[in-house]
């Protein structure tokens, strides 16, 4: 082992290493920072802007170039550029600061958009704007988890937001038609799941138009199907019960 002196240690700057293992060997390529994710998503199209050099290494920081026979063995070709492309798309890398930052920001926005789409202000039955939701999310110090889907996180956010502000999932409007026989019994079972009953019509069949929380839909669907043995029917009148049109204060 050589003696460590500051001069013989060369630090790599502006380099992101992408590595992969094939045929029991490790292969690395030297790329520019903040560029690999852009290449993978298709935003960057010029490969020269991504790769520092099209040489395939065994170890980038030591500057050890991969042997030709190893490349052929692992990739079936010795075309360095082609191999670089394969490694770029399939290899693993350390995500750089800016890339992570933009990714998180994008997810944050996405979550806010989903929340804004799904929820309403229960007083006015109008949606909140995305900006407002974003601010509310910052207020409760919500941190985005990069490995969970945005939709899942949105549901989590809604639950947390309910504690600090007036927010509610937009209701779904449903109509059930239940046979008279099971009607009464079923109604009792459905009652805890229903938020508001808008109209109820009981002649030969029991017809109910009501608002429910979208989270209960599956449960209700199941209940009606099982209890009425398929005789009852359920129809979604609107997925989101919100006020439409502009309202002017007069």
């Amino acid at each position, binding site marked *: 082992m050589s003696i460590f002196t500051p001069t013989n240690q060369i630090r790599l700057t502006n380099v992101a290493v992408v590595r992969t293992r094939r045929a029991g060997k490790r292969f690395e390529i030297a790329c520019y920072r903040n560029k690999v994710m852009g290449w993978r998503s298709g935003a960057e199209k010029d490969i020269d802007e991504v790769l520092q050099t099209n040489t395939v290494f065994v170890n980038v920081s030591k500057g050890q170039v991969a042997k030709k026979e190893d490349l052929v063995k692992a990739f079936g070709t010795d075309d360095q550029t082609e191999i670089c492309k394969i490694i770029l798309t399939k290899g693993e890398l350390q995500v750089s600061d800016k890339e992570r930052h933009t990714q998180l920001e994008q997810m944050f*926005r996405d979550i806010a958009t989903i929340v804004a789409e799904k929820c309403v202000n229960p007083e*006015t039955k109008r949606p909140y704007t*995305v900006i407002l939701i974003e601010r509310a999310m910052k207020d409760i110090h919500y941190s985005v988890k990069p490995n969970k889907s945005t939709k899942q996180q949105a549901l989590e956010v809604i639950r947390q937001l309910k504690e600090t502000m*007036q927010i509610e999932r937009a209701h779904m409007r449903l109509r059930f038609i239940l046979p008279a026989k099971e009607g009464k019994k079923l109604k009792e079972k459905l009652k805890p799941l229903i938020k508001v009953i808008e109209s109820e019509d009981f002649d030969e069949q029991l017809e109910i138009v009501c608002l429910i929380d979208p989270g209960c839909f599956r449960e209700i669907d199941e209940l009606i199907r099982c209890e009425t043995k398929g005789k009852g029917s359920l129809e979604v009148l609107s997925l989101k019960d919100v006020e439409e049109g502009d309202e002017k204060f007069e």
Partner: protein
Amino acid sequence: MVVTSLEKMIGLQREPTSIRNICILAHVDHGNQEYLINLIDSPGHVDFSSEVSTAVRLCDGCIIVLDAVEGVCPQTQAVLRQAWLENIRPVLVINKIDRLIVELKLTPQEAYSHLKNILEQVNAITGALFTSKVLEERAEKETETQGISDSVHGDQVYDWSAGLEDTDDSHLYFSPDQGNVVFASAIDGWGFGIEHFAKLYSQKIGIKHAVLLKTLWGDYYLNTKAKKIMKGDQSKGKKPLFVQLVLDNIWSLYEAVLKRDKEKIDKIVTSLGLKVGARESRHADPKVHLNAICSQWLPISQAVLSMVCSKLPSPLDITAERVEKLMCVGARTFDSLPPETQELKKMFMKCSSEDTAPVIVFVSKMFAVDFKTLPCNKPRPLTQEVIAQRRELARRRHAEKLIASQGQELPEQLTSQTESMTLKTVEQEADKESFIAFARVFSGVVRRGQKIFVLGPKYDPAESLNKLPSGCSAADDLPSIPHMACCTLENLYLLMGRGLEDLEEVPSGNVLGIGGLQEFVLKSATLSTSPACPPFTPLNFEATPIVRVAVEPKHPSEMPQLVRGMKLLNQADPCVQVLIQETGEHVLVTAGEVHLQRCLDDLKERFAKIQISVSEPIIPFRETITRPPKVDMVNEEIGKQQKVAVIHQAKEDQNKIPEGVQVDSDGLITMSTPNKYATLSVRAMPLPEEVTQLLEENSDLIRTMEQFNSSLNEDKKMHEINQKILDRIQEFKQKLEKNLQGRKWRNAVDQIWSFGPRKCGPNILLSKFEGYRKTVWQCLDKTTKEVSKYRDFDNSIVSGFQLATLSGPMCEEPLMGVCFIVEKWDMSKAEEQMSANRQDSEELDATEQTKNEDKVTSLPSSYPTESSSENKKLQDGSQGSPNSSEKSSKRKGETLLADCYGPFSGQLIATMKEACRYALQVKPQRLMAAMYTCEIMATAEVLGRVYAVLSKREGRVLQEEMKEGTDMFIIKAVLPVAESFGFADEIRKRTSGLASPQLVFSHWEIISGDPFWVPTTEEEYLHFGEKADSENQARKYMNAVRKRKGLYVEEKIVEHAEKQRTLSRNK
């Protein structure tokens, strides 16, 4: 100014001849007559011209104040125009004359010509207003008489005179010799009209008062030898009379005081017969000295107020013309009003305060005052009795405390508790704002506690007179009539600057404040005891609200306060508009940037009392597709040039459409559900523009159709729709047929399946496959549904279409003007599966579950165990009723189709949606921007700058014409909403307020650029360079929306890889 007692003012209110409605109450001795002058001050900034409107309506006359240095400003024009429109008489005060002396250092002669110039400018504006009115009247007359004259005398010679010659306009103009101009310097406390000097000099030099009055202003000079006044000063090189007699004196006074020429000052002071205090004359600042002299010599209040008293009309002198104008809303003529209403005109003219006269009051604005400042809540000096009472209370409380401390409970304690409760409620209320109506009595006497009708702007006396018994009053029990309400006048106030004084009654001709109307009156209203009274014409607002911003509370939990605050603001400000948009944004529309600032401050500090943030409102877009373009971006025909190899082009195209979706060259997308049971073929086509427009216009009709159809489908009792609507539907259908012609659209109208989004939007779904006959026209032929093999799932297809149209692939904005055609819908596999299941289940019903296990294994291998258990459960359930109907088994069939991809209907929805999106993506996509039409009034000299602002903001001028009789141009332009933020303000700044735009939403317009465009041919490379992102407006918009929504934006994090800063160099 002398402060008068309340009693005296109440006394003066009873005499309309001595009332001048023009701010603070002032009392002037003028001869031996006393006047009550109601002065209403109004703000000068353009943004608040709405406040001017509200003030002008209540007045009979106005004082227009001009700056002697700046002369006529745009705002002066606006004010003159407002006074003119309301038919009130103006008088002029030219202020800041001292600046001419001290700052500009003009000689008296120069100052004279400067003043003359200003007067001429003002008169020119009045003249222009006058001519445009005469011309308008003439044009109206012409159109009326044309019909008659053409037929009677065909050979009539055209009359070239515009009618200007015949109309007398001399009384309109401002002229010092008419006495309606005062020269003043308010800061130094002086002002005068010509009259003052005429009187002075008629005694001194012995020329007749009347002659002096006429000649003191104008090109006359004094021939001292002959002691005669001669004409033509300039030609003879003489000083005009005004300079010699008036200005020279003022100038010499200024000179003397500013130079501190003690002797001269003393001379002047003694010759004027004034006394100046020793303190003022020794003051270090000569201005103080000056003020002391001038305010005695030529007191400004005297000059202005005497002009007001002599030149401005009293409420009795209201002109018939003005009354008629007030009484006729919109285009109605006075003659068309019912006779009872016409009768009221006399009452207006009489302005009588008799008890029999009907009360007519106009409320021009509501203003908020602190609850504490109301007279009833004002701390009053305590009387002896009250003090005694309080002492008694305190003593009792003390006694109670003693008793309580001894451990004895007393019922009296209860009372003290309740007392403290009431105290608390008072405190809570004190925090509130209370609204007072700013109003004027036009006829009759208003009393506290009087019942009165509140008439909204749309109230029609003709309608209600038929309904109401004659001679009824507001106190009676009356049937409800639209736009009319009854209320009690709770409090009447005298407005004393900021203070309020309680009044018991207010006679005609007075300005007053009315409390307790906030439930009934929003911004303005007419109050009357007679139902025959028409509502007054709405206020003329010079500025319409155009600056739009979205407001939000800083803390999301404070939303309710914001909403309440905005409601209050809306009531308190005559010009602001407040609305909640469908997106949930709270939008504030104000007249200008300064107005906006005041509204926000009011919201923050008075009405909402919360922190708010302001942002640019969200701009809507629409997505659509077009026909493929024939030429490229450099106007070369496509296909001729050799394409430069573009590395990424091919890659991108593959990216868009995943595997498993077939695309043919024609843009037909074929897709299967994840479980491969159903296959859909969808194509997208652009709709002709006329059709899109037709659909937009008829969205209400489509919604009705939709409702009717759904009720038809459910076998419910048919809601009969009336014939009128049916006719309209028929007409709508015919129009569609007319617009959808050509080979492509054959039979298209009959195949319309649905509209979208929300079932009534500007997009169409067509069904072009065999064996399906359900259309939106069901309601017309009234055929009830036929049983079709597709029936169970057609809702899924329609829902998929609705979802696809609600958010497009470019930036998740709704679609517009797109037609989706379902060309094939293959469900053979699903049917097989279903029928198999049905048989199974029927068999099962019959055999009462014997081979339950076999059944599960007989299901396709893709069936997961989870749903099979559900299946089992269902079958178990069905045992209970062996005679299950056809319907239930069908439903069961559906449930059986559920597999690892979720329920089948859901899969169909998703597939349809995806198919639609891909079908769009293979066509050339375009964004549509919302457009405003913009009308700009501008004078000729700023026209160039208006164009510059318009073109900078992507606006397009449609037409430009000159307004008859004026030097104003009217420009009509269209402007994208996306570019409109700050537009009004910019145009005003750039044209120094001479152009004011009005923006109204008009239509959607396709942005011609392709948001995905990249240069492909050699010419395009040459022209745009490799990236070409600077040119692409459409992409800019698209990316902005995507970024806002948190969608993926194709943007590089770092533009140049080599140029990144190396952060850790010296590690």
